[in-house]
């Protein structure tokens, strides 16, 4: 059996991560190794697509096919890969700037189309790669290099957005040591989920973010109430909205509905119920 040899180490690539020592992204990466091994993903049958940013460098450190693309476009590229090769496992990864800023226009459409892929949003509340500017998730009041008088803008709430967009799996994890197992588990669930999985990961930037530190999160994260019913979308919206002093972690929402690939297959059946089309016949339309 092929599975005997699979362990988190299976997914480690030869390249050494270039992140600053202590960066949350190391924990994201190792949770991903764990999740891939849990779901027994075959490395060569896995594609990880990423955007640009510190977090966007992740595919380089995973033993799988990878595509490190441009800033903000990881999602549509991942969709193209999945639609072309539905038999492969496809993931997308990017930062808060990448996914909520420049790339924020793609998420609603990917979520509502429900391709069977998993998107990991690595949120450090700022632009790490470019050295610490405000991002769409920087809290109000925080001082950054582009908000020297304190950020005035109300931040976006990525989980709330994913829910509003109709993502069929929405979860939040934290890249802290104590939450490593939970994060791994959420990623594994997300990959197993048939449809679009959105995982919001809180991942501290130790170099540029003196506010949202490990400690900051440790003091605030909490699990979703045991009574929370992840099939109730309005309840999930409520949980996402409630976020104030406490930041709930876990599975907010999961639903089962047809995937994009299934829809496309259905269309193929409908278009050519008696098997493939012929070019010759098609030309006759013009004769």
């Amino acid at each position: 059996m092929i599975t005997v040899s699979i362990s988190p180490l299976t997914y480690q690539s030869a390249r050494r991560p270039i992140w600053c020592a202590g960066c949350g992204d190391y924990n994201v990466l190792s949770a991903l190794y764990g999740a891939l091994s849990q779901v027994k993903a075959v490395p060569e049958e896995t594609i990880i697509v990423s955007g640009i940013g510190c977090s966007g460098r992740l595919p380089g450190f995973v033993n799988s096919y990878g595509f490190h693309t441009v800033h903000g476009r990881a999602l549509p590229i991942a969709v193209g890969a999945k639609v072309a090769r539905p038999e492969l496992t496809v993931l997308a990864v990017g930062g808060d700037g990448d996914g909520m800023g420049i790339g924020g226009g793609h998420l609603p459409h990917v979520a509502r189309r429900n391709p069977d892929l998993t998107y990991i949003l690595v949120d450090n509340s700022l632009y790490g790669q470019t050295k610490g500017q405000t991002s769409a998730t920087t809290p109000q009041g925080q001082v950054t290099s582009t908000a020297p008088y304190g950020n005035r803008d109300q931040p976006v709430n990525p989980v709330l957005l994913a829910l509003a967009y109709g993502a069929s799996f929405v979860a939040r994890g934290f890249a802290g040591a104590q939450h490593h197992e939970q994060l791994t588990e959420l990623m594994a669930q997300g990959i197993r989920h048939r449809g679009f999985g959105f995982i919001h990961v809180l991942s501290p930037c130790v170099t540029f973010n003196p506010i949202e530190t490990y400690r900051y999160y440790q003091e605030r994260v909490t699990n979703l109430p045991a009574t929370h019913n992840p099939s109730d979308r309005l309840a999930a919206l409520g949980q996402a909205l409630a976020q104030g002093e406490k930041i709930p972690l876990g599975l907010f929402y999961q639903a089962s509905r047809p995937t994009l690939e299934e829809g496309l297959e259905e269309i193929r059946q409908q278009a050519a119920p008696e098997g493939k089309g012929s070019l010759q016949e098609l030309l006759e339309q013009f004769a």
Partner: protein
Amino acid sequence: MRRAKAVVVRVSGRAGDGIITAGELLAVAAGHWGLHSHTFESYGAEVRGGDTVYQVCISPAPVTDPGERLDLLLAIDREAALPHLEALKEGGMAIYEGAAATDHPLACEFDHEGHYICPVPMAELLRLAGASARARNMVALGLAGRLLGLPQKYLTEAVKERFPDQMEANLTALKVGFTYAADSAHLKFHLRPRQGEMGAHLVMSGNEAVALGAIAAGLKLFAGYPITPATDIMEFLARELPKFGGAVLQGEDEMAALGMVLGASFAGERAMAATSGPGFTLMQELIGLASMAEIPAVIVDVQRGGPSTGLPTKPEQADLNLALYGSHGEAPRIVLAPTDVQSCFGLTLKAFNLADRYQMPVIILLDQFIAKRREAFDRPRLLQVHKTRRLLPSPDDLGGYKRYRFTESGVSPMARPGTPGGTYVATGLEHDEEGAPSYTSEMHRRMTEKRFHKLAMAGRELRQVHVFGSSQARVGLIGWGSTEGAVREAIAQAREQGLSARALYPLALNPLPEAQIRRFVRGLGAIIVPESNYTGQFASLLKARLGLPVTSLAIPEGRPITPGEVVAAIKEASQP
């Protein structure tokens, strides 16, 4: 049109009148009978109310442009006829809604410009036939068909195919027109297909030919975003591609569309996007990524009038520079330019092979004129369709696989996801042979050279040019894309005026077939470069790449260049 047997017909009216439908069906019916045709449409960007014109040149012999002066004008009413009367030839005929007997067929008056002016009571005729007054376009089609001598069955079939749901109403109106003209004294446009061509032709538009070429090439994913005048490629494929096991995705914007294409191509399948100027601009960042990360991709840009939203429904050839240079840094891409509908088919097929062979973006530049017009041509020989596969890693390559390995051709084996031992990361960062980010001067130089070397290699199979006219001529024309037809016609017209010229049309604009061009210009006293834009983009390219002393004939009017304009330029260049 210069040839005696060609008839130029123009239908005119307002958006919503069905002008384009009438014109298209006339071309289709003529084509199916075995005649040749060439069309041009022009309308406003408004959905309703703007002026709309559809022109068809129909002839037993192949035609290369939609003609300049009209033999027959069909207008929906007098107001729609007036602006076009001056384009009528002497002895030409203008038909429009107007008071006349409903039983007496087609009475014409001869005006002092030498035109036959023929009012037809279309609305009244329709009323009598119990048909809707909105079907005046079908009456016009019937009139035109009859005057041209087309057998009724071809008209009927064309209408049936177009309107499977509203067949009866339209057929009734068609018949009204056909009958009204039947006994006219003015049946002077009798055309007949040439021997052996009866029923042999395909009639289609450039956009349709591109879509067919892509299906023939094995397209798996088309992704697009609606935009005039490229949308029909997506609409056609949305209907047809699923039958061939492929899929069409409509992106939330053009960046999403091209992103999907690159994802599918990275994953190992053939993929294409089509757009027009504004979308093409938005795609440039991802075109740069495809060039850098060496991802095959086919991108169709159907040029329209610009800049910005510009003249969405008009033709212009002003995206050449963008196609060549449109992203930051230096991102080599192949650029192809079909010169007629038929070459849209062949070049699209070829584009996929080039993209896969050289692992880079291939851009196909159409414009509204070539994309929307219908031409009749012989069936392509589908058995000959040749598909190149990407260079895959050999078992040897897979031990310590280097995705971007330096090779003699510059082309490195590209692993298809799913291949054990082939895992790698494609990236838009500068990188080493394994794909790991690397920013040393040496690596950047070598990888830049590798990417450009592939382009040069592609040039070896991109030497196809169309050369025509007199080989002795001292006046030459070098053009690109949709102007070829007008130039062919102009050279023929010039010959009749005792002037000789020859022309060259490369099918690839990047890399340019430089040797062919150098050979062509030998002995020329003047080189004219016709194009539908303001700055003479192709003329500049020829100057920059080949140092040729060209004369730019750049016409920035959002319409096809006419043979007359080209003849005038030939005449001027021929002056001693």
